[in-house]
């Protein structure tokens, strides 16, 4: 009986890496295990296509709107990042502008920009991770795929998720960027214990002062497995500006391949 009990306990530990990390006790191990579980639950989505709207507001409350379309390709190898193409539809003067990124983990990403007026594809520097993405409060590094190995982790505490998910309990995990040129010293994430999705993130600038808060709202599940937020609210505490991202018409496994994420294809996307 004693043996059987031990066997059962081991089996439970084996299927539940987070539980396992709870026993390991180190806050770093627990933080990493939470990130790995988030990543594991999202494996296998393949490729996706979504329509995005970006609403930019300044401190006076004036707003402007961008319409974009985002296509992504999952690259299953942990040592490689995902690929994505962002195509702008509005404002009209940047219609057809497309941005291609091949994400790396710790190396600089490969990025190209397509300028439709000149029909020109330009390889651009990816050093600018912390700069604003098209004038918004989202930095480039906030929008690219969140690869596990880009950060070091530390579990801080468990607590209620707060306003983004009032009835849920969250892990609070501190992330430290390991890649060069990050604009942050640390990020603090609230990850809900049930679905392992981030509900809130606080960003600390290079002076370790609170810079921005991101709320991730309206999660919906696709294909019985993949959770996607449909609204992201980013507030910059230092400037009073904010940006809201909304997502519509998510579709998965639409048949995108590596060829669709080739720089020579950029001028063909719409």
């Amino acid at each position, binding site marked *: 009986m004693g043996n059987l009990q031990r066997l059962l306990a081991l089996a439970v530990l084996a299927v539940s890496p987070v539980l396992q990390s709870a026993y390991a006790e180190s806050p770093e191990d627990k933080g990493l295990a939470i990130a790995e579980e988030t990543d594991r639950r999202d494996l296998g989505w393949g490729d996706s296509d979504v329509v995005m709207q970006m609403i930019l507001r*300044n401190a006076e409350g004036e707003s*402007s709107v961008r319409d974009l379309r985002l296509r992504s390709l999952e690259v299953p190898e942990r040592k490689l990042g995902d690929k994505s193409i962002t195509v702008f539809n509005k404002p*009209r*003067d940047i219609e057809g502008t497309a941005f291609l990124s091949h994400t790396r983990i710790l190396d*600089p990403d490969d990025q190209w920009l397509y300028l439709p007026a000149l029909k020109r594809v*330009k390889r651009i*520097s990816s050093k600018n991770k912390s700069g604003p993405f098209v004038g918004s409060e989202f930095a480039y590094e906030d929008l690219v795929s969140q690869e596990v190995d880009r950060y070091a982790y530390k579990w801080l505490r468990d607590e209620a998720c707060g306003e983004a998910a009032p009835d849920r309990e969250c892990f609070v995990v501190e992330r430290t960027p390991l890649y060069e040129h990050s604009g942050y010293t640390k990020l603090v994430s609230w990850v809900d214990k049930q679905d392992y999705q981030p509900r809130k993130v606080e960003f600390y600038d290079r002076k370790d002062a609170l810079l921005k808060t991101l709320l991730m709202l309206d999660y919906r599940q696709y294909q019985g497995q993949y959770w996607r937020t449909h609204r992201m609210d980013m507030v910059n505490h230092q400037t009073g500006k904010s940006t809201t991202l909304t997502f519509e018409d998510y579709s998965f496994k639409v048949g995108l391949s590596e060829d669709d994420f080739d720089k*020579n294809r950029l001028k063909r996307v719409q």
Partner: protein
Amino acid sequence: MRSRSARLAAGLCLAALSLPAGAEEPRFDATLELGTELRVFPKDPAYGSQRDRALSPSLYLEPEFTADWNGGDDRLTLVPYARFDRDDDRRAHADIREANWLHIGDGYDLVVGADKVFWGVTESRHLVDIINQSDAVEDVDLEDKLGQPMVQLAVPSDWGTASFFVMPYFRERTFADRRARLSGGARVDSSASYDSSAEEFHPDLAVRWSQVIGDFDIGLSHFHGTSREPRLLQLDAGDPTNLTQHYDLIDQTGLDLQYTTDAWLWKLEAIGRGGHGDYFGAAVAGFEYTLFGIAGTDMDLGLLAEYQYDGRTENGDAPGVLGNNDTFIGTRLTLNDVDDSSLLAGAVVDNEDGSALLSLEAERRIGDSWKVEAVARFFAMGQAQNSAYGLRRDSFVGLTLIRFF
């Protein structure tokens, strides 16, 4: 009979079901860009034949019509273009920028019809870029292009993308009217002469291979056909301002290379060309270095420098060229603001006679459907031998207000 029509109906139903849910095909889209431009010429013209008008207004429109089906894998595009100019009869012109059918097949892309194609990496000179003729009346930077009729096939593979071009019709470069500014006081006859007896119907061919290898973007190309650069011949010995265009058959091999590392972009374009007198080589090489987030702001400042070399024989059988031994330095300021404001300022200096072309381009969006562009070009000419000497009093500032519909 009945069973056949039933099968047909069932087949049609299946075909209808196989369309993506909710997508109405084909999808049509029509947009319009309308611009009003005012050019200001502060100096009197250099030549008596030119009208002395300090303010030169013009207006352009560029509608775009597209239809796509098969989930975007088939697309028809039509982009006509027209400009109305008060002071330059040649600049008042119309063009088809694009009129083509794009088909994205299984392992290939096909374009049939007029299209624009850009090759190259450098900023100050576009040596490798040879598919389209320049629309030289639009702006003196030669970056505006006329639509080129072609059949274009691109085949991507692990070894890079190979593209093949067949161009059955050639289009002559446009030049300013003699009475207008930026004409150099010359009249360029609109009926050109050709090396090829087929004249503008000589079938031009081009092939290009491009590949990304790590931090390197590489392109290799070869073009065989009618040179996009005309030689300007004197029509009548008594009147050096009366010119005609002559187009030679050339072979041009091109290489473009960019190495991207950290905040550095290292760029090289090089060509070898036969058919314009002796075989010659030409190259542009340089870098762009970007200072991101200058002074704790969101602004980026780019520093650019390029060297231009061209080995063609001066006064030989090749068209005259400005950038034979010149240095370009420039700066690009990007505000990264909501209005996408940016500014590019630069100077190309002739290393031999010190002549300089200075230019400044700035743009910013206003609201959702307006945009303002400013351009300034200054011609600081040293010696009369410089081929841009004729422009020495035509420095100008242009302001364009654009409305998008």
